[in-house]
């Protein structure tokens, strides 16, 4: 997955670098002339750091622009267009599908300096520029008795622009929905450098941009819906000897009428990786751990829902522990948030799936995936927003020990399990480059054609984030 490199065989302890660091391309020079040196990164040491996200390394960009306004974005897009190079938008690059990693050298626009954030408590709205850190919205809204519910695991780092680009979810998505459900309108810059202001009325074009991974336009600002937080929250943790039993408990609890705020699971390998980091006493021996929040404004209902979940867990053979204090439940949720990066302790790289399946199929799906993993001999772990049927099977690997083809094949088999059970390829991380090759299995040719038509209508020259989502038209499966 990392671009191929040749190991050095010299005996000198200070190898001679292949570059003196300066950009020798006209694009960087032109952008610097238009925007000034502070907004443009052109040295190699700077550009090297804008070629990755949290899953993949891509091509080193020719130049990086750090815009401070929508006008800067327009200037940058027009310059890239004139130079005939691709444009990739980037937030904090914590994405998990390769979405922000360029597939070919071009311009990266990094939104981290566009951080204007206004709260309008009377309208229960926030207006945020693309680079606003997700958590900052809730932090600024809280004094007004409001929160912004979408809470991806990376919410301390990730930006609103990136969240909308990937339509990110988070533990709260079961009851409260994903990022796109909180967008009232947005501003974006198109492939020609035109600026558009969209609402959700008439044609829901805002909906089209959300989750388009920067392939249809660059989101520069958004109007977000805020809500009052629930008055009461109760947390429980259940552990199960086996991952399928955990899924059975979830299906039973929901069928019994519980609507928890959060319903998350992690399997044994996840639990242990996180316990290595946090040491908070997670049950290392359990085959699967379930974390549940029930919440609402009526304490009786909140407690009743927790009792329903508890009964379902016990019935499925689980053991239940209630979080006694707020700090105990905060620690449990931090544990869940840390799963993804903590897996790095097992292997340095991973193929990260993001499938969603019908809840009724959950027990069968998690067991089938577990069996596929065991048969492959590759380290495979599962966790995810199980209440939504959103599973993240991750294949962990070290490219020097495990064959990339075997990893890709296993990922493909897992994708096919999801599709066979009526599921989809992505719940919240996007398709990016990671799942692009499976799109033909998941989407029928007519629909795929319609998606291509939409892309052509908004970005006829293929400038915006090429190589993402849609598989190549000639039928070759591009390996990530």
């Amino acid at each position, binding site marked *: 997955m990392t671009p191929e490199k040749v190991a*050095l065989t010299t005996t000198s302890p200070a190898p001679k670098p292949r570059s003196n660091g300066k950009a020798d391309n006209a694009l960087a020079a032109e952008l610097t002339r238009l925007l000034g040196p502070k907004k443009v990164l052109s040295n190699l040491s*700077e550009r090297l750091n804008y070629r990755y996200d949290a899953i993949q390394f891509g091509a080193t960009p020719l130049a990086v622009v750090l815009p401070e306004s929508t006008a800067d974005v327009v200037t940058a897009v027009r310059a890239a267009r004139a130079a005939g190079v691709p444009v990739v938008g980037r937030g904090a*690059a914590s994405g998990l599908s390769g979405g922000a990693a360029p597939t070919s050298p071009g311009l990266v626009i990094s939104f981290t300096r566009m951080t204007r954030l206004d709260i309008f408590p009377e309208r229960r709205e926030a207006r945020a520029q693309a680079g606003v850190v997700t958590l900052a919205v809730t932090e600024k809204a809280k004094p007004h008795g409001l929160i912004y519910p979408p809470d991806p695991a990376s919410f301390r780092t990730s930006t609103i622009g990136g969240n909308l680009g990937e339509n990110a979810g988070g533990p709260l998505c079961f009851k409260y929905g994903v990022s796109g459900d909180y967008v009232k309108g947005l501003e974006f810059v198109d492939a020609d450098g035109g600026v558009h202001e969209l609402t959700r009325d008439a044609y829901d074009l805002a909906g089209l941009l959300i989750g388009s991974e920067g392939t249809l336009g660059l989101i520069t600002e958004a109007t977000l819906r805020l809500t009052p937080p629930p008055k009461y929250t109760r947390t429980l943790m259940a552990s199960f000897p086996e991952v399928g039993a955990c899924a059975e408990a979830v299906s039973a609890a929901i069928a019994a009428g519980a609507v928890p705020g959060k319903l998350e699971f992690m399997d044994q390998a996840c639990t242990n990786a996180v316990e290595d980091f946090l040491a908070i006493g997670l049950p290392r021996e359990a085959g699967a751990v379930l974390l549940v929040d029930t919440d609402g404004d009526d304490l009786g209902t909140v407690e009743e829902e927790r009792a329903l979940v508890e009964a379902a867990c016990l019935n499925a053979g689980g053991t239940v522990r209630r979080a006694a204090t707020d700090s105990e439940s905060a620690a449990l949720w931090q544990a869940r948030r840390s*799963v993804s*990066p903590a897996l790095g302790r097992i292997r340095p790289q991973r193929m990260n799936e993001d499938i969603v399946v019908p809840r009724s199929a959950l027990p069968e799906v998690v067991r089938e995936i577990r069996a596929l993993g065991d048969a492959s001999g590759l380290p495979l772990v599962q966790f995810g927003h199980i209440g939504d049927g959103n599973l993240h099977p991750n294949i962990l690997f070290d490219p020097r020990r495990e064959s990339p083809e075997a990893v890709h094949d296993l990922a493909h088999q897992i994708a096919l399990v999801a599709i066979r059970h009526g599921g989809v390829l992505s719940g919240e991380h996007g398709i990016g480059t990671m799942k692009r090759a499976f799109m033909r299995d998941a989407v029928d040719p007519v629909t795929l054609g319609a998606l291509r038509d939409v892309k052509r209508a908004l970005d006829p020259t293929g400038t915006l984030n090429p190589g993402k989502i849609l598989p190549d038209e000639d039928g070759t499966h591009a390996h990530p």
Partner: protein
Amino acid sequence: MNHEIPVQNIGPQGEVMAHAVDACVHCGFCLPACPTYALLGDEMDSPRGRIVLMKEVLEGELALADAAPHLDRCLGCQACVSACPSGVPYGELITSFRGWSEPHRERSPLDRAKRAAILKILPAPKVFSLAARAGQYTKPLAPLLPAALRAPLDLLPERVPAMQPSPRVTPARGRRIGRVAFLAGCAQQALAPNFNAATLRVLARNGIEVVIPEGQGCCGAAALHTGARDEALRLVRQNLAAFDPDEYDAILSNAAGCGAGLKEYPVVLHGLPDEEQARAFAAKVQDISEFLAGLLRQGDLEPPMPTSRPLTVAYHDACHLAHAQKIRLAPRELLRAIPGVTVAEVPEGDLCCGSAGTYNLEQPALANELGVRKAGNILSTTPDLVVSGNIGCHTQIQSHVRRQGSRVPVMHTVELLDLAYRGEL
């Protein structure tokens, strides 16, 4: 991150670096923890970015001179280590990298002279004391001087105290329950001699005999973290010879930076013949707060006297205690053991104060910005007292709270405990 670092050409430190680079999954969880990312907001000045830069230099893809400005801006605070779920040993990486890269650096003669002076003066208490007192008289001229010379003067206290020689052995008072060795420290002896005096008094009162072994020197952290690896190795070995871990229950330091430095010895000597000796030594090293909290938990700490009025104490987590040594609870437990004391948590508590060893002298502008922010955060808790466990933080915080017009006393954890024992709070 998959690396192609030619480990065989770099030696044991190459292994340390390659392991750290491999462990990074570039998830970005470190970004919000990093002080320079908070100030500069770009990827090159974040831990994740710096790991990539070091990897590229080691692999020969990027010129050292091109990466150096970003690597030099790292404070070494290790807040990223606390934030990293993947367990990347970033501290070991940047320290090893600085040691490896320094011989390949091209520095101006002035830069070289400045660094040499810092490394000569800082670890020699007598020279430092002399320089500090000379500096004290130059202080009124500070506004006329260039920034590089102004920075150290700004940090000097208004009055540099006289050196107080410490006794080689301080006997336990009452029944003797233990015997420890103590690292007396360098600059701290000149700037805040009472830290050591209070430490000896508190330990003796609790039945601990304290030995200050002869022949000990600077812990080597300053040299190590500025890339002067040969000098660091010399100091490390000098201390290994001076302290025999078998003779003591613990080897104590009351400066977070020095304690972290001592605990790092096995990494410094990784792959060298004396690695095992360093391991035995490091296993005995404890911060003073860790040791005293141990006594407290065993019920062996003499209860301090109550304060005369309720006191709010803002406790500042030194990076080298909280992040490098993972010590957060112990100092708070000790403070709370004093009846009448309430510990206030400082907003943005995990963000470095900007002192960071020699950072104040090498990156004065960024250090100043962080100092202003830290002092503001501390004062927002309206404390009666400010407490930290590191001389660098102490100097930085004192200088910045004074500049913001506050006269609030700033002291070491052990000084507060000492005052409580004497009924002077």
